C-alpha cells in the first residue's frame, strides 16, 4: 500500500516538475500538461503510441527488477537491448521464434560477460555493464555502417528484418510477450524456491551463503535472465516497430528500465502499471517536442525525478539508523 502511494506520488511529482520546468522556460504549464496528456492518451492513435512505448519499457523494467532483486547492479539493459536487436535481425531469416530466441541468448551472453568479470576478476558489475553499453552502441554503429548496411547503402541502416511479429489489433505481439514475461518473472520470484533463493541473495548475501545458497550461481543466473529479458526487449522492438537496425535504436530504453522498476517497487506485476505510465510520459513528451518545441529529453529528466522521489521516500520511511554526529 505504501509502495503504491509512493509510486503515485512520484509519478505526480514528475508531471509537476515537468510543468514547472516548462513554465520557467516560458511555456504555459497548463498547456504543457494538456499536450502531455493529449499526446499520450487523447486519441486512439496516441493510446496506441503509449502502448507501443510501454512494451520495451516493461521488458527493460523487468530486466532491472530481476537483477536488483538478486542484489546485482545490472545498469546494462541498454547494451543488452542493442545486442538483442542485432541478434534478432540476424536470426530473422529463420523465423520469428528463432529470431526472438537469438535476441534472448545475445542479451544473456552480453550480461554474462559482466558476471564473468565480477566472479573471476572482482570487477564491479555496475561499471562493466555500463561500459558494455557503450561498446554495444559502437558495435551497432559499426554493423549499420558496415556488414549489415542496407543493400542500397543509402542510409546507415540495415534492410528490414526478414520476419516480423504478428499484429493483434494494431499492436504487435510484443505486448503479449512482455505481459507473459511479467507474469513469469512474478512466478519465478514469489512462487518458486529458486526465486526465494534469488531474493535471499539480494537481501543479504552472507546470510544466504550461511543458509547454503550458492550465491555466485544465483548472481550468474539472475544476470543471465536479466540480460535475456533486455535482449528480448530489443528483439521485440526490432520485429514489432522499427524492423530495421539503425544507430539510435535504443533511445535510452535500458536506462528508463531502472525508473520503471523502481517506480514499481521492484515488483514484476507493478512494472506493468509503471511501464504504462512511462510509456505515456515518453509518448506525451514526444508530442510536446512536435507541438511546442520542448525537447523530448524532458522525459529523461522526469524519469530521474521519479527515481529520486522513490529513493528519497524509501530512505525516509524505512527505519533510520542512528543519526550521524
Amino acid at each position, binding site marked *: 500500500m505504501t509502495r503504491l502511494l509512493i509510486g503515485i506520488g512520484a509519478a505526480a511529482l514528475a508531471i509537476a516538475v515537468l510543468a514547472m*520546468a516548462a513554465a520557467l*522556460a*516560458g511555456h504555459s504549464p497548463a498547456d504543457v500538461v494538456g499536450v502531455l496528456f493529449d499526446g499520450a492518451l487523447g486519441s486512439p492513435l496516441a493510446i496506441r503510441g503509449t502502448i507501443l512505448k510501454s512494451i520495451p519499457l516493461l521488458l527493460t523494467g523487468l530486466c532491472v527488477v530481476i537483477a536488483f532483486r538478486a542484489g546485482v*547492479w545490472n*545498469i546494462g539493459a541498454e547494451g543488452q537491448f542493442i545486442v538483442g536487436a542485432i541478434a534478432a535481425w540476424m536470426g530473422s531469416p529463420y523465423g520469428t521464434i528463432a529470431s526472438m530466441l537469438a535476441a534472448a541468448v545475445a542479451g544473456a551472453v552480453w550480461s554474462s560477460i559482466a558476471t564473468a*568479470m565480477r566472479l*573471476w*576478476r*572482482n*570487477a*564491479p558489475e*555496475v*561499471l*562493466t555493464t*555500463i*561500459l*558494455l553499453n*557503450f*561498446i554495444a552502441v*559502437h*558495435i551497432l*554503429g*559499426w554493423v549499420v*555502417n*558496415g556488414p549489415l548496411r542496407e543493400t542500397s547503402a543509402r542510409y546507415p541502416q540495415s534492410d528490414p528484418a526478414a520476419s516480423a511479429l504478428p499484429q493483434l489489433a494494431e499492436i504487435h505481439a510484443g505486448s503479449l510477450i512482455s505481459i507473459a514475461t511479467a507474469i513469469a518473472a512474478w512466478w519465478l520470484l514469489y512462487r518458486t524456491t529458486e526465486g526465494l533463493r534469488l531474493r535471499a541473495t539480494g537481501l543479504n548475501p552472507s546470510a544466504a551463503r550461511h543458509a547454503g545458497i550458492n550465491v555466485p550461481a544465483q548472481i550468474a543466473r539472475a544476470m543471465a535472465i536479466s540480460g535475456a529479458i533486455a535482449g528480448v526487449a530489443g528483439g521485440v522492438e526490432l520485429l514489432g516497430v522499427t524492423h530495421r537496425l539503425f544507430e539510435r535504436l535504443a533511445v535510452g530504453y535500458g*536506462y528508463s528500465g*531502472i*525508473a520503471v522498476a*523502481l517506480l514499481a517497487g521492484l515488483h514484476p506485476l507493478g512494472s506493468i502499471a509503471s511501464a504504462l505510465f512511462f510509456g505515456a510520459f515518453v509518448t506525451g513528451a514526444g508530442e510536446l517536442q512536435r507541438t511546442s*518545441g*520542448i*525537447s523530448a*529529453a*524532458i*522525459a*529523461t*529528466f*522526469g*524519469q*530521474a*525525478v521519479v*527515481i*529520486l522521489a522513490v*529513493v*528519497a521516500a*524509501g*530512505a*525516509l520511511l524505512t527505519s*533510520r*539508523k542512528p543519526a*550521524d*554526529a
Partner: protein
Amino acid sequence: MLELVAASVPLALVASVPLLLAVQGELVVQRSGMINLGVEGMLLAAAFTASVTGTLLGGVAGAVAVAAIFGVFAIVFRADQIVTGTALNLLALGLTAFIYREIGSTAASAMQSNVIAPFAWIVSPLLLALLLWRTTTGLRLRAAGENPDALRSAGHSAAAHRWLALGIESVLVGIGGAHLALALSNGFAENMSAGRGYIALAVVIFGRWRVKGAVIGSAVFGIAAALQYALQAAATPLPYHLLLATPYVVTLLILCGVTGRVVAPESLGKS
C-alpha cells in the same frame, strides 16, 4: 606509426584532462566512503554551465548543483548511492538537453588550456596527496571511508568530511567540465561527457584509490586514446566505429587486469 603515437601524446594529455580531474575528484569522494556514480552527470552539468557562462566558475557551479543533490541523498537520507548516482546522470542528461534546446545555443568563448593541463597533471595531484596523507583533515576524511564509527567516537563528523570530499570533487569536476566544453570543444553538445565519468570510476579502482595510481591510470588511458587517434590518422583497416569503442574496451580490460588484492576503503558505498 611510432612517430604518430609520439606526436599525439601531448594532444592526448590535454584531451584527458576532464577524465583526470574526474578521477581525482572521485578518488577523494571514495576515500571518504561514498561511490558517486553521478560524477558523469556532474561533468555534463559542468560542461553545460561553463559553456553558458563562458567561465570556469560557471562550470564549478554546475558540478556543485549535482553534487549537492547527491550529498543530500547519500549523506542526509542515507539512500542507495548507486541508484542515486544513476538518477543524477539521467537528470543532468535530460535537463541540459532541455535547457540547451530552450536557449538555442551557448555562448562559447574559447579557453586556453595551457594553465589547466599543468594544474590537472601536476598541481592538483600534489595538493590532493598532501591533503589526504599529510594533514589531519585528510586522515579524518580517509577515516570516514574506512571506519566512520571510529571517527564519530573520536568526536568528529563523518558527514562533514564527506561533504568536504564532495566539495573538492565539485571543484575538480567543474574545472574538468569547463575544460571539456570550452577548451576541447566549441561549446556544449548533448551528452558530451560521453561516459568519461564512468571511465573515471574504473580508473580510481585501477589506481587502487591512490593519487599516484590515479595519475598513472589516467596517463595510460590518455596514451591508449592517443593510439586510437594515431590509428585513425593512419587509416587502418579497423572500422571507425570499432575504434570509437576502444576506450571502453580498454577500461574493461583495465578493470579485469587489476591483479592482487584490491584494497577499497572499508566502508565504501555503505549507506
